């Protein structure tokens, strides 16, 4: 059983990383689009009220200060706060935020377990009574992240189907997959919660499990913990089939669509790229679009054929 868990865990992690990477790469590979920015643009100097560099006369002669760190923090902040939901649908927020915190913290917990295992191999004793302060800190961080993950995840997974059914708008657009996910995630978090509360209050078994993973030594675990780990591995394999990549793509959308205010200055790299895109062929069949022409051709001489003909 221990060997099976090791194999399954490696498969699950490789799978989720590979699929997420492919999805993100596919997102980034799409060609540059026409500007479609939306204000406030957070890296802008006057982002507080939504001002842009277009507020200046002859903006192209002026510096365009840009605070990328602020944008990054702003986009990450909502993973932990979800302010728009708090403002607009507080009941939904009450379940949605814990549900999402469950995701974030369970992944964080496992990543920390990995580092804890590495530290243990290096000789660090991770325990409440560890002779090393670092070991004590590690112990409590693991306890905190794991506990938050199990509690918020379980709470959110119970609340989400209830609010999904109770709210007219959410109900109209609900799909069986939503309810399957809520149920499955409840089982995942709930099994973890039970294992933690009943069998393993120090979460010692997870450290043993991760130690086994990195040393390729099958660990001896309680069946309840095994059940949770197997479910968690399946959870990792299932996630890429949901819209969960939005944790990453929402940030990409902010930076590459909503806040993309980069002007196309003469001689720039952007201008060169656009030149290439304008050479692509269009095959739209509307009567006003000439067949077999490039974008540039359709927009210039070919596009005026219809006009000349009708004169």
């Amino acid at each position, binding site marked *: 059983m221990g060997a099976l868990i090791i194999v399954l865990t490696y498969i699950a992690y490789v799978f989720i990383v590979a699929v997420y990477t492919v999805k993100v790469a596919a997102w980034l590979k799409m060609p*540059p689009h026409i500007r479609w920015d939306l204000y406030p643009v957070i890296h802008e100097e006057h982002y507080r009220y939504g001002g842009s560099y277009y507020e*200046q006369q002859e903006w192209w002669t002026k510096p365009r200060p840009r605070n990328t760190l602020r944008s990054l923090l702003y986009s990450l902040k909502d993973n932990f706060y979800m302010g728009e939901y708090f403002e607009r649908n507080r009941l939904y927020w009450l379940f949605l935020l814990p549900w999402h915190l469950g995701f974030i913290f369970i992944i964080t917990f496992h990543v920390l377990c990995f580092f804890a295992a590495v530290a243990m191999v290096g000789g660090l004793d991770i325990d409440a009574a560890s002779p090393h302060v670092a070991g004590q800190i590690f112990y409590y961080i693991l306890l905190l992240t794991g506990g938050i993950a199990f509690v918020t995840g379980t709470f959110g997974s119970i609340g989400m189907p209830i609010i999904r059914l109770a709210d007219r708008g959410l109900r109209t657009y609900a799909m069986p997959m939503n309810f399957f996910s809520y149920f499955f995630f409840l089982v995942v978090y709930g099994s973890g919660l039970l294992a933690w509360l009943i069998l393993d209050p120090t979460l010692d078994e997870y450290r043993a499990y991760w130690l086994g993973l990195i040393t390729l030594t099958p660990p001896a675990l309680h069946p309840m913990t095994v059940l949770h780990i197997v479910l968690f591995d399946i959870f990792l394999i299932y996630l890429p089939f949901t819209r969960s990549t939005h944790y990453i793509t929402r940030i990409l959308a902010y930076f590459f669509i909503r806040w993309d205010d980069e002007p196309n200055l003469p001689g720039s790299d952007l201008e060169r790229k656009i030149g290439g895109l304008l050479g692509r062929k269009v095959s739209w069949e509307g009567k006003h679009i000439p067949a077999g022409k490039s974008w540039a051709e359709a927009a210039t001489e070919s596009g005026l054929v219809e006009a000349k003909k009708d004169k």
Partner: protein
Amino acid sequence: MKNKINIDDFSRPGGQVAEIDPAELIPLPPPYDRMEKPPIRKLTDEQRKRMDASLDGVVAVGLTPPASMEEEKAFIEKFLAGLEKLFSDQDNWTFLQPLVHTLEYCVKCQICSDACPAYISSGRQEIYRPTMRPELLRRIVSTYIKKEHPLLRKFKASNIDINWQTLARLAELAYRCTLCRRCAQVCLLGCDNALISREIRKLFSQQMGIAPKEIHEKGSVQQIRIGSSTGMTPPALRNILEFIEEEIEEKTGQKIKIPVDKKGADMLLLHNAGEFLAWPENLEAFAIFLDAAGVDWTLSSELAGYDAVNYGVWYDDVQFARVALIHAKAAKALGVRKISMGECGHAHKAMIVIADRILTGDLNIPRESCIPLMEEIVLSGRVKLDPSRNNFPVTLHDPCNMVRLMGIVSPQRRILEKICPQFREMTPHGVENYCCGGGSGFAITQSTNFPDWRSAVSGRMKMKQILDAFQDVPGPEVKKYVCAPCSNCKGQFRDMFEYYGIWEKSGILYGGLVELIVNAMVDLKKPFIQWEWH
């Protein structure tokens, strides 16, 4: 009826998916809470036979039903072929990334619904939810393009049966969104359901040749063909400018020659041609103001060089690119250093922002808004102004294209704070403003009962905001001014104010920003704003 609507209703032959119930519309303050006429006129039987109104009884596109099964089949096949092109990086590189992102990552959490003025104003009609159009499109893609297994479609609730009427309803539904993008602003996942409305419009236009005639046939096509969507030709422009010069002399006693085709001028000013015909006072004010400030500017009389509109921004990338190129070529021919956009929101967004990735090489001429220039002149004192001349209540409407979609927020406010002692804001304002209700071509769409819909539904929230801004002076005895630095917004206000009888009941006038500036000019003997021309 609104509570029982579901996606399958869009595929139901005959009938109407939703009915706009006047009792469900959000209330307006008295005396507008008791409208004497029904908010939206019913179509006649003859109109219903000719034009599909099976979405909500309103017509913007008005497709004619197919005459045979073969015709219907060909229509559907052509649509589906277009839908595939929408996901092609050849045919739709222009918006592929935001389109794919929204369709794949929207979790249908409905947080955007409460941000949509049309949805809220309608009394939360299910069909107007910002998520409805993407949901329909997503299902069509799942069922007919990706051809996902029926069990998977059931699991993902992504099945749909389409017929001609489904698509006719979808086409109409794409024209119930003003593209104000308030929905996108609140989305934590970076999705943009307003863009989906535009992509659906684009599919119908670029693939099927279907668009409201005011936008395409009488809009962008006419602009490319004869120079302006208004039908104004270059010779007609000359006549109108002569008239404007005479008007200026009559109003101010000043002889001002409006510069046209002045080679090597510093700045080409591009006005929405609607101003020439409907609001010449805006052009007059610009001429007086720029003359007084000593700006080196010119208009163009080149084909379409005198009409800043670019309706392509609402429905068609090819038409958009054509018009943008014509504008840039007009500027290039004159050898101007820069292009300045007059008071027109969509023209601002189209030429300054969106065309930015269309115009390359020597057509990439610097482009800016007229508002920062006006601010510089007003705040520098180059033109002497007396704010007491504008001592009446003034509020500011933020055109979505100029503000939420471009970030030009504060210059117009600094101007109004300097020249209008009774300036007050609407709530909310700035980048969180509400659309006038005439955005994305609605203000020019005059088809059958569509103007009723945009006054009663899409513009209702703005109407409420305006009335609320003047709640301390509600009666007609105090004259009030809504400053709307956008031609399309003014078109919407013209129709909506008439619809509600705003002048008679509340004494509210709408107009541009430059008119207020000129009204405050100490050099003018008489007030420039003529309240009697409401």
